[in-house]
């Protein structure tokens, strides 16, 4: 009699989803990599050194995994959270006090911190193995953008709980924009943009205002950061990640000695 597992694996439903049986022989191990949507990001075969944990630390992989964790927990948080002065803080409190299995916020927050750490470690590894050298220069540049966006993701998310920690950290962080050369209200060369004696760059039109949507960290800022945090930056990161992974393959796979 066939076992339960076999019965399931031989069913029409299973076969319609998984295009190949569990690969146990060489041929199928190759085929599975080519025919599975998720696995086909990988090559079929790779130099042994390229998968050694002591070489890559799997740090890029871990960063990507954390990005996925953040996406999923982030969507769940969005179910509960409303980005308005009236509700933001309240909703976070509710998440802590009344939502069952209340570790959603923790998972998202610590996952975010962890992602900042792992992205630095990944960059560190890539530097230490000299993996930015030709032909991988451009992928390193893509990586630097990913690094910046990871920090911005974390920074925009920091404001959303709307507690003291949040607004003051963002106030301190964004005050510097006031001093942007030329475009900041208190930046050097601010007087250059001046039409007929009227200052174009004031505290209601400078770089900081553009970032905050107001003169102070307020409701407009909350809305701006929310949209950036939940929609715009993740989209850009996804696009760059696609390019990043594609380039890893096109540049000849994980680096190694010639």
């Amino acid at each position, binding site marked *: 009699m066939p076992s339960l597992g076999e019965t399931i694996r031989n069913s029409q439903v299973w076969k319609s989803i998984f295009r190949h049986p569990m690969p146990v022989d060489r041929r199928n*191990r190759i085929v*599975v*990599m080519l025919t599975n949507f998720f696995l086909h990001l*990988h090559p079929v*075969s*790779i*130099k*042994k*050194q390229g*998968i*050694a*944990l*002591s070489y890559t*630390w*799997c740090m890029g*992989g871990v960063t990507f*995994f954390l990005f996925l964790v953040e996406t999923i927990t982030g969507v769940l948080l969005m179910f509960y959270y409303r980005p308005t002065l009236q509700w933001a803080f309240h909703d*976070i409190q509710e998440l*802590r006090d009344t939502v069952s299995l209340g*570790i959603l916020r*923790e*998972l998202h927050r*610590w996952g975010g911190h*962890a992602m*900042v*750490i792992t992205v630095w*470690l990944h960059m*560190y*590894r890539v*530097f*230490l*193995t000299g*993996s*930015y*050298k030709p032909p991988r*220069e451009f992928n390193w*540049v893509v990586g*630097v953008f990913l690094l*910046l966006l990871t920090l911005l993701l974390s920074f925009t998310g*920091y404001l959303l709980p*709307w*507690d*003291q*920690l*949040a*607004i*003051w950290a963002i*106030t*301190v962080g964004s005050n*510097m924009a*006031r*001093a*942007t*050369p030329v475009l900041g209200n208190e*930046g*050097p060369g*601010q007087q250059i943009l001046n039409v007929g004696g009227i200052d174009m760059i004031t505290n209601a039109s400078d770089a900081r205002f553009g970032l905050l949507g107001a003169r*102070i960290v307020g409701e407009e800022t909350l809305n701006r950061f929310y949209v950036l945090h939940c929609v715009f930056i993740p989209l850009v990161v996804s696009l760059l990640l696609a390019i990043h992974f594609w380039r890893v393959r096109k540049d000849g796979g994980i680096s*190694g*000695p010639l």
Partner: protein
Amino acid sequence: MHVDHVLFMQQVSAFLGPYYLTLALLNAIAAAVLTYQLKNARAGLISVGVSFFFVILSAFAWNGLPPGLPQSVRDMANVALTGNRGAVIYTLGTTALLIALFFTRKYWVRPAVAWGALNAALLLMGLSMISPAFFNIVSKADNVPIVSLVFLLGFFTWLATSKAVANDERAKQGLPPLEKLDDEKILVWPDLVYTELICMVVVTVVLLVWAIGLKAPLEFCAERAKTPNPSKAPWYFLGLQEMLVYYDPWMAGVVLPSLVLFGLMAIPYIDFNKKGCGYYTIAQRKFAYCMFQIGFLELWVTLIVLGTFLRGPNWNFFGPFEDWDTHKVLALNNVNLSDYFWIDVLGASVPRVTSDMTGGDAVITVLKREGLGIVLLLIYFIGLPPVLASTVFRKMFVRMGFIRYMVMCNLLLFMTALPLKMVLRWTVNLKYIIYIPEIFLNF
């Protein structure tokens, strides 16, 4: 006060008991690995002893008597690391440490030595916890990532360095790097796919434990009227916030971060060294390695650690065991270069722009007043590159060509400008080299 202390001791003990026990377990595992896998019986035996030692510490902690650093040692650390002197000692100390680590790398990459150092660091941390000031900062929920970052960086630096040292040794003997030995092609299924799966499981477990064990912080609802003191940016930006001490916001908050990003992106295009691609090495790319480590470990990470743990109210520098006293006042007597020049050297008054001056007069006054600073900066940024190109960087200049060389040189000069400015601040209280408040341009 007394009740507070009892509560605090309970809290610390509840943390330190499991903490020491974990260390004991880790040492027991290390003993097994050292003895059977690395065939180092002596180190194994020591590890057993250390494990036993941690069990005893743990027992004390469980019973509400966690051992700690003696008050005298804590006082000494506080005296050394406070105020301006603290900033100097911390910065010079970490720099000296990194330099020493660089030169002694052959020694500490040995597993037994590294393991000993890790144990010492963890023990020191445990013993320090007994100080409320230290415990409160280190265990603050949002600071936990930095503590982990420091240990993770330590671990991975050790890992990378030990591979680099081994490879450099092999290169001397004419052998290819270790990575070359794993040259054969293997199938991604199952090896890589399973490795990735295991990594995902491990990360998930770590994250779950972290999330269950540590609540996300939530203070009271945002209130504009109540400015916390200190107000700190998120931890990964604290290096930038620390730079604000030495530079105006337009430099610390805008120009220098942009240059950091630009500099990172430029690395592949200015590093012309073809060696050291795809394997760990230090000897074959010493210059690139050292520059990166100065930028990353010294100027980025240690500044973050400083900003998180040692900067308190009013951004004053506090010793690790010192209470954050909001009323601590430090005399600020920083002086601009133009003041030095006009008042102390020329014995004259500093020329000022007055409201009745025409634009042209104002410009001339400013140029006159800040002339020395402007000339010095021109020498630094424009004059130094050619001088370096014909001396220490001569070989590099020839191989890199003009543009590449100028980009690299200017990035380096900007990078070194930070420690230079720090030193000038501490030694001669220099505030700005160029001070033109009329157009918010201070450098």
